[in-house]
C-alpha cells in the first residue's frame, strides 16, 4: 500500500525541551493509524505540525509523496487534512446547521448545506437533528457535529486528538463503527490515544513515541495491550534513592471511597479512590494527564467546594468539610502544578509570596497587621537553604526562572514543618539542577517522618523518590506497586487502563 503522509526528520524544540526529535514514519492510505505515548512524548506537537498549527524547526512532510508546505490550518484543509480537537469549538446558542456553515471555507446556502450534511449523517449513521441548538446536545453528539463539520470539507486525512476521552462506552462503540466505515470509503484516520485496548481494537498501525522520538512503528495485529504498554514506557528500572523509613503502623492520611459526580464533560469523575498514606511515606500517583489528577487535587485542597462522596481522614480527623485555610492550619501543605498565579503571585515580591502561604500562622502577623520582619527573615532562610538564585527577597516572583521559583515554593512549604505535603508536577519544566535538588529535598523530608503525595506524569521522577506508586486511569486508582523491584510490565498495563 502507498503512504499518504510521510514525516521526514521532523524536529521541533521548545525552550528547554525537544518536543519532536527527528520524527520519521509513514502513514498508509486508507488506514487507521494510532499515535501512542505518555504526556510530553510529542504526539500533540506532531499532529499540530501536520495540521499547520505549529511550524517545525527542521524536517518535512510529504503528502502523497509530494513535498507539502503547511503553514496554516487553512493550507492543511486545502490539502485535505482536517482535525477534530479534544476540546470542541462550537457556538452553544446556534443550531447544528448554523455551526456547520460557519466551518465552511466555500460559500454555500444553508439549504444546500443541510442537504449535504443530511447525506453524510445518513450514510455514516450520525444521529443529529440539524435544527437543534448545540446547547441541547450530549457530548457525543457535539463530537459528531465536529466530525461532520470536518467531513463537509471532503477530507482525505482526518486527525482525531483523544477522540474517546469524553465519550461513554456506547458512544465509543458507535464512533468506532463510524471511523471504520469512513476508512472503508477512502479516508485515512490518524488518532492520538493512550488507551491500549482501544488502539488494539481500532487501529491498523501504531507509532509509539517517547521523549519526542519514535520508539516503535508497528502493525497492530501482532501486538497486545501488555506489549504496547511496555513499549510505551520503555526499559526502566527503579532508580530509587529512597531508604525504607516508613512507619507502617501510623496512618497519616486515608482516602475512603472518594467518588465525584460532576456533570461537566471535561472533568473526569473519580471512582471509589482508596488509599492509606503512612508516616514518612512518599506515595506517587502516576497516570496520563486528564485521568482525574486535577479532580483529586481539588478534593485534597478544597479550593472550590468540589463535590464528592467518601471520607478524607487526616490523623483521625475527618477533613471533608474543612476549607483550604483550615487544612493548612492542620499542617497540610500544598504545591500546585501551576507555579505562577497559583502557588505564587508573579507580580508580588518573594517575601509577599511567603505570606501568601503562611497567613494562617500567627507569627506572621501582629493582629491585623503584617509582620514584615518575620516574612522577610523567613524568605531569606528559604533563599539560603534552598539555593534560590536571586539578589533579594524583594524581587518579584515572576522574575525568577521556573526552577528557582519552584525551589522557593517547595522550600517555603517544607520550612513550615508540614506533616503532610501534597505536590502536583513538582519538577515539570524546570532545569536539571533544580530538579535534582527538589527530589533530594523531598527524600530528606520523608526521612524526617513527613508524608508526601506526588501527583505526576513523569514516571522517572516517581520511580526515583517514591516508596509506592499507583496509577490513576479514568478516575480509578490502581493497586499500588512497590518502587523497589518494580514490575514495569504491570506499570505499563496500569498506565493503559488494564488494572487487575
Amino acid at each position, binding site marked *: 500500500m502507498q503512504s499518504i503522509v510521510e514525516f521526514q526528520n521532523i524536529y521541533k524544540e521548545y525552550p528547554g525541551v525537544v518536543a519532536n526529535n527527528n520524527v520519521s514514519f509513514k502513514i498508509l492510505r486508507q488506514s487507521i493509524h494510532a499515535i501512542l505515548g505518555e504526556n510530553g512524548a510529542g504526539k500533540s506537537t506532531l499532529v499540530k505540525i501536520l495540521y499547520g498549527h505549529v511550524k517545525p524547526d527542521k524536517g518535512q512532510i510529504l503528502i502523497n509523496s509530494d513535498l507539502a508546505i503547511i503553514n496554516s490550518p487553512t493550507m492543511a484543509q486545502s490539502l485535505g487534512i482536517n482535525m477534530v480537537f479534544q476540546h470542541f469549538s462550537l457556538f452553544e446558542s446556534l443550531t447544528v446547521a448554523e455551526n456547520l456553515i460557519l466551518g465552511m471555507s466555500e460559500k454555500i446556502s444553508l439549504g444546500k448545506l443541510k442537504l449535504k450534511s443530511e447525506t453524510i449523517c445518513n450514510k455514516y449513521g450520525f444521529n443529529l437533528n440539524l435544527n437543534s441548538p448545540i446547547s441541547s446536545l450530549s457530548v457525543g453528539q457535539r463530537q459528531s457535529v465536529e466530525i461532520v463539520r470536518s467531513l463537509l470539507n471532503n477530507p482525505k486525512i482526518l486527525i482525531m486528538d483523544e477522540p474517546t476521552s469524553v465519550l461513554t462506552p456506547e458512544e465509543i462503540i458507535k464512533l468506532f463503527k463510524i471511523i471504520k466505515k469512513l476508512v472503508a470509503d477512502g479516508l485515512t484516520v490518524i488518532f492520538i490515544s493512550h488507551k491500549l485496548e482501544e488502539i488494539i481494537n481500532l487501529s491498523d498501525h501504531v507509532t509509539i513515541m517517547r521523549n519526542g522520538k519514535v520508539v516503535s512503528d508497528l502493525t497492530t495485529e501482532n501486538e497486545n495491550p501488555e506489549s504496547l504498554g511496555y513499549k510505551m514506557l520503555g526499559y526502566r528500572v527503579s532508580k530509587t534513592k529512597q531508604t525504607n523509613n516508613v512507619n507502617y503502623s501510623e496512618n497519616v492520611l486515608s482516602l475512603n471511597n472518594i467518588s465525584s459526580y460532576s456533570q461537566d464533560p471535561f472533568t473526569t469523575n473519580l471512582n471509589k479512590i482508596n488509599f492509606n498514606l503512612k508516616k514518612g511515606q512518599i506515595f506517587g500517583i502516576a497516570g496520563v494527564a486528564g485521568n482525574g489528577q486535577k479532580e483529586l487535587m481539588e478534593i485534597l485542597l478544597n479550593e472550590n467546594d468540589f463535590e464528592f462522596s467518601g471520607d478524607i481522614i487526616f490523623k483521625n480527623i475527618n477533613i471533608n468539610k474543612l476549607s483550604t485555610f483550615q487544612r493548612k492550619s492542620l499542617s497540610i501543605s500544598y504545591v500546585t502544578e501551576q507555579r505562577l498565579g497559583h*502557588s505564587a*503571585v508573579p507580580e*508580588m515580591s518573594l517575601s509577599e509570596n511567603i505570606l*501568601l502561604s503562611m497567613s494562617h500562622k500567627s507569627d506572621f502577623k501582629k493582629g491585623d*497587621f*503584617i509582620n514584615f520582619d518575620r516574612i522577610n527573615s523567613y524568605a531569606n532562610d528559604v533563599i539560603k537553604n534552598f539555593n534560590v538564585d536571586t539578589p533579594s527577597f524583594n524581587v518579584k516572583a515572576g522574575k525568577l526562572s521556573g526552577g528557582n521559583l519552584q525551589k522557593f515554593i517547595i522550600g517555603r512549604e517544607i520550612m513550615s514543618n508540614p506533616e503532610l505535603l501534597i505536590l502536583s508536577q513538582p519538577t515539570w519544566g524546570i532545569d536539571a539542577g533544580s530538579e535534582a535538588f527538589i527530589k533530594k529535598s523531598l527524600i530528606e523530608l520523608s526521612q524526617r517522618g513527613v508524608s508526601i503525595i506526588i501527583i505526576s506524569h513523569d514516571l522517572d521522577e516517581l520511580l526515583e523518590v517514591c516508596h509506592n506508586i499507583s496509577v490513576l486511569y479514568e478516575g480509578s486508582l490502581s493497586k499500588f506497586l512497590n518502587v523497589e523491584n518494580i514490575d514495569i510490565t504491570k506499570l505499563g498495563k496500569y498506565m493503559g487502563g488494564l488494572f487487575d
Partner: protein
Amino acid sequence: MVYLISIKLREDYSNLIFYLSPLVAVVLTLFFGSFIFLILNLSPIESFKIFFISPISNSYGISELFVKATPLAIIALGLSYCFKNNIYNIGAEGQLTMGAIFGGGIGLLFNDSTSIFLLPLMILFGAIGGALWASIPALLKTKFNTNEILTSLMLTYVALFILDYFVVGPWKDPAGYGLPKSMPFPDAGRLPVLFDGLRIHIGVYFAIIICFITHIVYNKTLFGFKLRVSGLSSKASQYAGFKYKNLIFYTFIISGACAGLAGLFEVSGPIGLLYRDISPNYGFTAIIVAFLGRLNPIGIILSSLLIALTYLGAEDAQLFLKIPSAVGFVFQGLVLFFLLGTDFLNKYKVSIS
C-alpha cells in the same frame, strides 16, 4: 495577503510607565482636546486658559475645586478597594444617593434639633445607607454569581427613583411652592465650612483621613494583602485559603459607605436639603478618578483635583465660551480613553503581520 493584528502579552511590562501613563493620558487629552476647540472655531490656548487656569485663579475658585474634589476623592478611595479586588462596583452613584437619603432623612426627621450629635448621626446614617445599598450587589454576586457590574449599575437608577419619590412625596417641603425638594436641614445638621464665605467644608478632612487609612490598609495590613492577592490572581487567593466571598462583601461595604458619606456631605454641605439632582455624576466620574490615580490613595487625591477641575472648567466654558458644559464630560471621557489605551499598550504588544 491577509494582514492580521496580533496582540501579545508583554512578559516584562514596565512599572514606571504604569505610573507615568496618567500623565501621558492627560497630555494626549490636552492635545486632542485642542482639536475639539479648533473645530468649534475657538483658540485652543485661550480656551484652555478659561478651562483650566481661570477657574482656580482666586480663593473662591480654589475652594470650589476642593468642594468638587472632596466627594470624588472619597468615592474613588472607596471604589479602589473594590477595583483592587477585581470587583467592578459601577453603582457608586446609587450608593451616594442612598447615603444622602439615609443621612438626609435623619436631618429631616430631627428638623428642629439643635444637638451637636445630629450631624455625626447623619454622617453615620449616610455611610450606613451607602453600605446597605452596596451590600445588595455583593449578596447577589456571592449567592447567585450575578455580574456585579450590571446589578450595581441598575441599582443606581432604583436609588435615584427612590430619592425622586421622597422629594415629590412624603418629604416635599410644604412651604416649597410645590417644587420637588425637601425642607432645608436644621443648622445643627449642616456641615461646617472651613472659611467663612467659602463653600469648602470639613469633608476635606475626611478625604485626607480616608486616604491615610487606605494607605495603611493597602501596605501594612493582612486585609490589604488579601485584596491585592485576589485582585492579581483569584487562584492564588484560593491557594492561600482567603475567603473570596467575604472579601467581596467587605470591599462592597467599604466602597458603599464611602459613597454614602460623600452623598451625605453633598446634601448637608453645599446643598443643604434633598432634591432631585444632588450629584453631577460624582459616582460615575469617581471611577475615572480611581483608575487615573492608579488605585493608589495618594494618586487618587491628585486625580480627584484634576477631574474636579474639568467640572469647574466646564462651567466657565459654558459661561465665557458659550459651549455646553458637557464638554467637561468629553474631557473626562478622553482622559479615561487615553488612560485605558496607554495601559493596554503597556501591557500588550501589538504587531501587524
